[in-house]
């Protein structure tokens, strides 16, 4: 099976998932992001790399933060950005997904940023498009959120410099998390020696250890000696499906508090893909505390998305 993300020369033509991407491409993106990070601090925050290109933000489900950072990133690369909130337009009128895509392609789109509630939707779109058009997955169901995974890696690299000595813990609702899956693939590809997932059995997917992670159900054991803690968002609907009894009990057993954080390495960093539920998966004291790098993550996200867009559209 051909990797649908790569062109005949093995270059990145779509970014759909971190799984299956070679180490070199991940490093190429992180290095490019580093060079773009400076642009964000300049007075004129624009580069002409995507001048004349049309970037369609195609969000089948809402995600303000992701959409906004993609929009900013595209504008800094001088692209024309069109935001489409498809959830409330054509799809609700019964148009099929591929009809929507065909219509937008006919408007000479160059790059689609796709967010969809169904795992795999961006693959279908990528398969359908002509070869000069590109797709970046901005989150599909539970499957992947590769730019989030990359910005997490960028953040870790920024603070820890090297991946090959790190122990990383990912905590909470791994089952429903596209962020966790992308980050696990990125960490294992870039040589992090120990990736842990921590959560109750109801929120860890079957056979997750086959993705190369160590499974912990006891958060205190799982956090011992870690360099990086990634907290995942817990959605309220998890209480309805009998996955959890209550947010309170979840916070007690798997919420990150200062006491639990003290079990990690003294210089551990705390990350969260946002939006946070304070008092559910993370205590405010930790979210706003000295170990937290949650807001820098958002800032780095722009440079990482600039890097991905420029590489994908350039190939």
């Amino acid at each position, binding site marked *: *099976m051909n990797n*649908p993300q790569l062109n005949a020369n093995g270059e990145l033509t779509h970014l759909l998932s971190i*799984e299956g991407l070679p180490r070199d491409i991940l490093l190429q993106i992180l290095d490019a992001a580093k060079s773009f990070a400076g642009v964000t601090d300049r007075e004129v925050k624009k580069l002409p790399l995507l001048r004349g290109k049309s970037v369609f933000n195609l969000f089948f489900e809402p995600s303000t933060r992701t959409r906004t950072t993609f929009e900013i990133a595209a504008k800094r690369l001088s692209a024309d950005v069109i935001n489409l909130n498809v959830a409330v337009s054509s799809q609700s009128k019964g148009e*099929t*997904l*591929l009809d929507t895509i065909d219509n937008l392609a006919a408007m000479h789109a160059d790059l689609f940023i796709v967010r*969809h509630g*169904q*795992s*795999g*939707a961006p*693959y*279908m779109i990528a398969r359908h498009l002509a070869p000069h058009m590109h797709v970046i997955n901005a989150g*599909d*169901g*539970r*499957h*992947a959120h590769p730019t989030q995974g990359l910005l997490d890696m960028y953040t870790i690299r920024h603070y820890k410099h090297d991946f090959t000595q790190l122990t990383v813990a990912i905590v909470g609702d791994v089952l429903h998390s*596209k962020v966790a*899956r992308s980050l696990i693939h990125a960490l294992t590809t870039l040589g992090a020696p120990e990736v842990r997932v921590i959560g109750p059995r109801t929120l860890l*997917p*079957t*056979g*997750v250890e*086959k*993705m190369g992670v160590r499974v912990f159900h006891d958060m205190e054991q799982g956090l011992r000696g870690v360099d990086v803690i990634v907290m995942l968002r817990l959605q309220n609907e998890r209480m309805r499906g009998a996955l959890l009894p209550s947010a309170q009990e979840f916070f007690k057993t798997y919420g990150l508090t200062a006491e639990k954080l003290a079990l990690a390495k003294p210089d551990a960093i705390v990350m969260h893909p946002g939006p946070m539920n304070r008092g559910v998966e993370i205590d405010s004291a930790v979210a706003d505390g000295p170990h937290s790098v949650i807001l820098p993550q958002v800032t780095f996200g722009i440079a990482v998305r600039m890097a991905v867009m420029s590489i994908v559209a350039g190939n």
Partner: protein
Amino acid sequence: MKIHLANGHLIDPKHGVDAKQDVFIAAGKVVAIGRAPDGFAANRTIDTAGLTIMPGVVDLAARLREPGFEYKATLESEMLAAVAGGVTTLACPPDTDPPLDEPGLVEMLKHRAKSLNLAHVYPLGALTVGLAGERITEMAELTEAGCVAFSHADHPLTDNQVLLRALQYAATFDFSVWLRPQDAYLSKGGVAHDGEVATRLGLAGIPRCAETIAVSTILELARASGVRLHLARISSADGLKLVSAAKRDGLRVTCDVAVHHAHLSEIDIGYFDSNCNLVPPLRSPRDRDALRAGLEDGSVDAMCSDHTPVDDDGKLTPFGEAEPGATGLELLLPLTLKWATEAKLPLVAALGRITHRPAAILGIDAGHLGVGHPADICVFDPRMHWKVNPSNLRSQGKNTPFTGYELPGKVRFTLVEGRVVFEG
């Protein structure tokens, strides 16, 4: 019409025939094997040198989509697909719209099928009214109208009291009940086997215990009711183990697997191939291997196509939104041949799974070529390989996970009651 199939190699699993034998047909029946009866003058002699003659394929599950889903397929298109695939007898599940829960609907379907004069169609009646799982249907009336067994298709029947009573009622008349075992709650929302691949791809899973729990429940209710039971589309090693144990205990139970479960596993989902969205889900390679072993040793009684034509709108969607199912009437025989080759099984054994064994489950005189019995026959070229290209399939459903496969066995002639209904 008298037909002489000359110089072919006859394989008749029921009678253990595997030899070069001529077949003589008159008045819709096989009148002789080997030597022509006295005074036999053929209207047509078909040279079958180099070809294999076998009983017409009996398929235990083919959705014809009528009534109600004619935009997905019609009786015409699917009956042509059947005979092009060497299928001369097929059972169709009751999940049409409306479901086959009234004698009038069954009579109409039988009549429509008969007027097409292609394969024999045996409808399965709905076990409950509207397949809603609440009230039992008029099973005696439906049987009179032409139903050969009762089924709940893929619709959930969660109320075990209703199920027990339905089985008891069917047992009263010795009607056979076919059930596809899958716990409705444990499979809720799931679209793929709850395993490594679903975890990686972020697809909602259906655990193996959704099958084993349903198999256990159904077997217990069958024990309690004494019904003749057929378990359809077993997908897991553990599910099959339970069926085998019940058989050893003397329970009257048979089972089948779908042809895609004998060849594919969760791995074949690849990058979200919606043609691999199937019910039940493709499970692990270990499960697939157990099903193949079961086919080989006979603990799986039959292989069926589970033919489910789906239009593009149903499949050109993200994996989890796709309509489950695969087209299969034209692939059942070639995929059975492929399995036989891979399992190093002689055809006279392997082809039993798609001929006399399913015919016995249906309780009909088909699937063999005994003298004096109906001349439903498939003649295929065993040396010819062909590449699966959906646009060349006669079925209106182009949805198959086997696109691009090189399959053995090209059907050359299909005969139904002594009439040539397909030549390829």
